[in-house]
């Protein structure tokens, strides 16, 4: 049986439609280009990036932050399905968890890429190295991210192996872990927000609203991304995904976007009304400061696309139109992606603690390397989802495709 299963999985991964092969080939190519640039970065050091002392974190950390949000968003599927027993989501909750696995893997890759001395990674391993827990929030992040990765991976493998054998997997045994995955998902994004908001040296980040805003924006961007992917999946595979499931997700996205915009408003009010010297990074981002205004068009784009998306989503009849829904999802993805990089990491450093403004934007090497990481992440997702669908639809294994698990 194990041999059978492995054969089946390998067959599933290597065979597929022309589109599937082209997609995998494309991602592999991007990944290879990224890896080639990684060698250059290793050789020259991080000086090959555009980061400098004044802006010491950049595009990699921005991507990391965004992807923690995508990973956390798996909960948006877990809560309605497992906890409120909303059946239509059943077909896709596993795909959401595979997405979480892929997203956390990308997060870890971005962290390693950002380390100046990655070969010393073992210094972080408890007992062998020195793990500065609980003082350093970074160690908390290491703990929760790895825990979340293991948790999702185990849940997926467990559910799929049961389904493969033709059995039901919604047993008492795993319920505690599923319940646990909800606070775990919240924790990965909260702790990531704490990395920034715990720095009184950076007034732009040092605001308590950052953590709830992270959660709200993550619960928009992650499901928005998945909404598009689910539509692709149901067009290209035999997996049935009901409209009701997608509409439910869109509804959740709507309310999270409302909260996100509300929290943004609170932030804007607090900064502008109190108008202390700490408003400088805020001004740098929104208006430009002392002639430096490269982030201004980005942040306004983000706010405008997020608001348009919200207007589309808020009217149920419009949101149920898939064309409009896809526009809203694309806008949200773009909006939140900009918010995390140009809207959060970069302005946190400008002006610097000594009052300097260094206009950071990633260079082409950083962009290629990041694209490479995304390609690897999407490969993990594509392959994982393909195996999952093959098992669920009974293409391999002994699942009864007509039954909802």
């Amino acid at each position, binding site marked *: 049986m194990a041999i059978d299963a492995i054969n089946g999985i390998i067959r599933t991964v290597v065979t597929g439609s022309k589109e599937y092969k082209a997609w995998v080939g494309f991602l592999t190519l991007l990944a290879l280009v990224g890896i080639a640039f990684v060698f250059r970065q290793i050789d*020259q*050091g*991080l*000086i*090959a990036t555009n*980061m*400098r*002392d*004044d802006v*010491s*974190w950049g595009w990699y950390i921005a991507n990391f932050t965004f992807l923690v949000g995508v990973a956390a968003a798996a909960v948006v599927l877990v809560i309605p399905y497992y906890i409120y027993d909303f059946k239509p989501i059943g077909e896709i909750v596993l795909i959401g968890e595979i997405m979480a696995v892929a997203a956390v893997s990308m997060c870890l890759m971005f962290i390693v890429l*950002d*380390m*100046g*001395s*990655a*070969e*010393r*990674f073992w*210094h*972080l391993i408890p*007992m062998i*190295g*020195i*793990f*500065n*827990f*609980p*003082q*350093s*929030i*970074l*160690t908390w992040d*290491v703990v929760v991210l790895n825990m979340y990765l293991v948790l999702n991976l185990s849940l997926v493998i467990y559910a799929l192996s049961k389904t493969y054998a033709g059995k039901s997997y919604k047993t008492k045994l795993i319920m505690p872990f599923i319940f646990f995955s909800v606070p775990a998902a919240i924790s990965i994004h909260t702790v990531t927000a704490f*990395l*920034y908001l*715990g*720095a*009184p*040296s*950076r007034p732009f980040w040092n605001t308590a609203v950052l953590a709830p805003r992270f959660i709200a924006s993550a619960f928009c961007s992650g499901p928005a991304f998945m909404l598009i992917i689910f539509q692709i999946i149901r067009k290209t595979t035999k997996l049935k995904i009901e409209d009701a499931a997608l509409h439910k997700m869109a509804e959740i996205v709507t309310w999270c976007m409302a909260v996100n915009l509300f929290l943004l408003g609170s932030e804007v009010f607090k900064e502008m009304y109190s108008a202390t*010297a700490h408003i*400088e990074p805020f001004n740098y981002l929104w208006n430009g400061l002392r002639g430096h205004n490269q982030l201004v068009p980005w942040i306004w784009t983000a706010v405008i696309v997020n608001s348009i998306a919200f207007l589309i989503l808020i009217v149920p009849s419009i949101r149920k139109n898939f064309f409009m829904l896809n526009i809203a999802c694309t806008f949200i993805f773009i909006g939140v992606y900009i918010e995390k990089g140009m809207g959060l990491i970069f302005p*946190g*450093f400008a*002006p*610097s*603690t*000594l*009052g*300097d403004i260094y206009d950071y934007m990633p260079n082409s090497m950083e962009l290629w390397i990041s694209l490479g990481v995304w390609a690897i992440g999407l490969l993990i997702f594509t392959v994982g989802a393909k195996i999952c669908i093959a098992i669920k639809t009974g293409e391999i294994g002994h699942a009864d495709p007509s039954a909802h698990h």
Partner: protein
Amino acid sequence: MSDDIKGKEKSLITRRKFLAGLTAGAAASALPAGEAGAYAFEELFRQHYKRLDADDLKDILAKLEEELSFKYGKEVHAKATPPMDNTVFGYALDLSRCIGCRRCVYACVKENNLSRDPQIQWIKVLEFQKGNNKWQGLEHSNRYYEPEQVPEKGRFYVPVQCQQCKKPACVKVCPVQATWQEPDGIVVVDYNWCIGCRFCMAACPYGARSFTWGKPSIPKEEFNPEIHYLGNRPQYKGVVGKCTFCIQRSRAGRYTACVEACPVGARKFGNLMDPNSEIRYVLENMKVFRLKEELDTNPKFFYFFSMGTGVKS
């Protein structure tokens, strides 16, 4: 758990035994290249500074001397002088005297073997307009002033370096304890333990930490051969460094390089525990202040005006 990192050292292979094996291997191949390779290999597995016992440290320093003497063509003396009893170092800077000449900056670069390209400077001299009321938060500084002559009319200067905080944000956030505060108050970095995550740079409120973004370069003829393991030994690509109050000098009872270089005597340095020290005199007789007091980092770096009425002069 995290404060006591010495507890587990006994169970670890001691560095000495490890090195003994390596030197035997290196002796077999007389080539310096082979030796350097073995050294790099040893470095990869080297333990945290606080986990090294006296013998380990001796071996490491000897190796360091050998390697650097070979590389820079002069006899290098590497030390790891421990803190002195009843000593906490403090610093005070007289803003009414500072003329913004940056001699402290250059003296620091030379003394501490800082990379020239990429350029690393641990002291930053900020220029402000007189009458500008936005200077205490450092918001309106100009670090890149280039006048024909200093001081310029209508300007004043505020040099900033590591403030040796008593509550150092950098130490709190470091995930691997690669940076910590010594008993004499100096915040140091183990350049062989830092993983280069730069969390400390995000946390430091004074822009005091510099990252070695690329392979450092130091001109041979300007290399300072008197080095300290936690101070002015050359840093590596991909790690963080910072001012250590010239640990190699201060622990030997000397003034820091910046104090000696200042042509107008704006810089005062000494032992805060010694009632007769110069620094204590300043603290007791001048009205001193510290940067960004609202963050409660509690720096051991003070500023004062000995002359005139301050910024309006």
